[in-house]
């Protein structure tokens, strides 16, 4: 969209929308990074901070809602302008859920720190890094209206899925070996799921960016490699050793 609207106020409104999404996305990024950090370092103070700060993301989502509704009523956007407004609305809702998942991770961090340290910290840390990168890239893709960048993000989700599957196995193994770690590991299972869901949401955002640019959803299916739904650990080994 090289040319500007004849009515400059229209362009200002669209820029304002971008600013709100950028701000919201930035917050969500930080929240996620802090929640992972808090988990790895067993830092309850940081976790508490994350839980409190989720309000900010919710507030911006309300602002985006109001702004998009007003733009639809007052500007009657057509074609690409309409897609900008619709995707902004959707993306805001997705980012808000990412924020909620980060808050949930921090809540579980508080619970986990009450028991002895356990768990595959390295895998989780790896997963967190990948997903953080995805969030960062997809927000850039949105602000630049770059569909190819968005496509990359979609591809990266494959790695997240693989990590999640292996994390799932690891945690199951831990729980079978040491029943005392079951509560912590269960929490960690949920944490892992949350991180995986955040990755999926990032790909949702990526698909919306594609829609914004091209006017239709991407029709190739993205590679999904999450086997966790099919994973069963055979505990007959344990009984037989």
């Amino acid at each position: 969209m090289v040319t500007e609207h004849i009515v400059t106020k229209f362009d200002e409104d669209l820029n304002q929308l971008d600013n709100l999404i950028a701000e919201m996305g930035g917050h969500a990024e930080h929240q996620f990074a802090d929640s992972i950090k808090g988990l790895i370092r067993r830092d309850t103070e940081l976790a508490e901070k994350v839980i409190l700060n989720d309000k900010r993301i919710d507030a911006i989502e309300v602002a985006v809602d109001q702004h998009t509704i007003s733009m639809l009523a007052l500007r009657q956007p057509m074609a690409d302008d309409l897609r900008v407004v619709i995707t902004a609305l959707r993306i805001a809702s997705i980012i808000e859920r990412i924020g909620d998942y980060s808050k949930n991770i921090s809540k579980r961090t508080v619970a986990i720190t009450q028991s002895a340290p356990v768990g595959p910290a390295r895998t989780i840390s790896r997963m967190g890094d990948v997903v953080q990168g995805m969030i960062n890239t997809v927000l850039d893709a949105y602000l630049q209206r770059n569909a190819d960048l968005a496509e990359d993000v979609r591809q990266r989700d494959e790695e997240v899925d693989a990590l999640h599957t292996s994390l799932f196995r690891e945690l199951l193994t831990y729980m079978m070996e040491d029943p005392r770690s079951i509560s912590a590991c269960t929490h960690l299972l949920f944490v892992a799921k949350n991180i995986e869901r955040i990755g999926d949401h990032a790909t949702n955002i990526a698909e919306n960016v594609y829609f914004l640019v091209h006017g239709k959803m991407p029709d190739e299916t993205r590679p999904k490699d999450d086997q966790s739904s099919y994973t069963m650990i055979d505990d007959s080994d344990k009984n037989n050793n």
Partner: protein
Amino acid sequence: MTTVTPPTPGATTEPRRVKYSTKNVDVFYGAKQALFDVSLDIHEYEVTALIGPSGCGKSTYLRSLNRMNDTIDICRVTGSIELDGIDVYSDEIDVVHLRARVGMVFQKPNPFPKTIFENVAYGPRIHGIATSKSEIDAIVEDSLTKAGLWKEVKDRLDEAGTGLSGGQQQRLCIARAIAVQPEVILMDEPCSALDPIATARIEELIDELRNNFSIVIVTHSMQQAARVSQRTAFFHLGDLVEVGETGKIFTTPDDQKTQDYITGRFG
């Protein structure tokens, strides 16, 4: 996987028969060319909207469909404009008869300075469609009813047509056009002189009329074109830039110029 495209609102499921087939139409006003190689099909029983900035040639195109451009001496039309397969500029076609088959409604309501009854009865009389008093009465009532005006004027048919409000006058002009039982109705910005409620009434009327007539409407308002038409054609500086289903034109147009126009990036 196969994608299922949901139907856009107002779209038809099967393609309609072509009523007007225009190919390679050029229109010149003296030395100045107003339309460049326009090829456009108008389909039966649907509303086709012509949009575009001022001076882009949409009114010129509309007026060449019923040869109203003949009244302008320096105007020259080349190319093929066929109504049901017969070229309207050929010698076989009688202009007077053509204009009875293809009616026109103008931007500013222009009822004759006669009574309401006479306004509507004039057309059928001169074309010999109705001769006896009862026939004419029937046509007048039928046309005014179809135009949504009968209830409001049935008690004052012998009052002057110019005494009605703007919206009523325009509906009177539509009734007058319908009375000669045309096949096509051409509308040149019919609502631009009317207030929003009168405009909405006319749009509703257009929606009802398209069951019986083919309608071509020139409009400056894109929202009106979006609301009222099934096909939209975008003109720019005498060129037909893009034509297609209305839903598609206003959500995902193919041409960048179309997109720029409908989003208000240039006028």
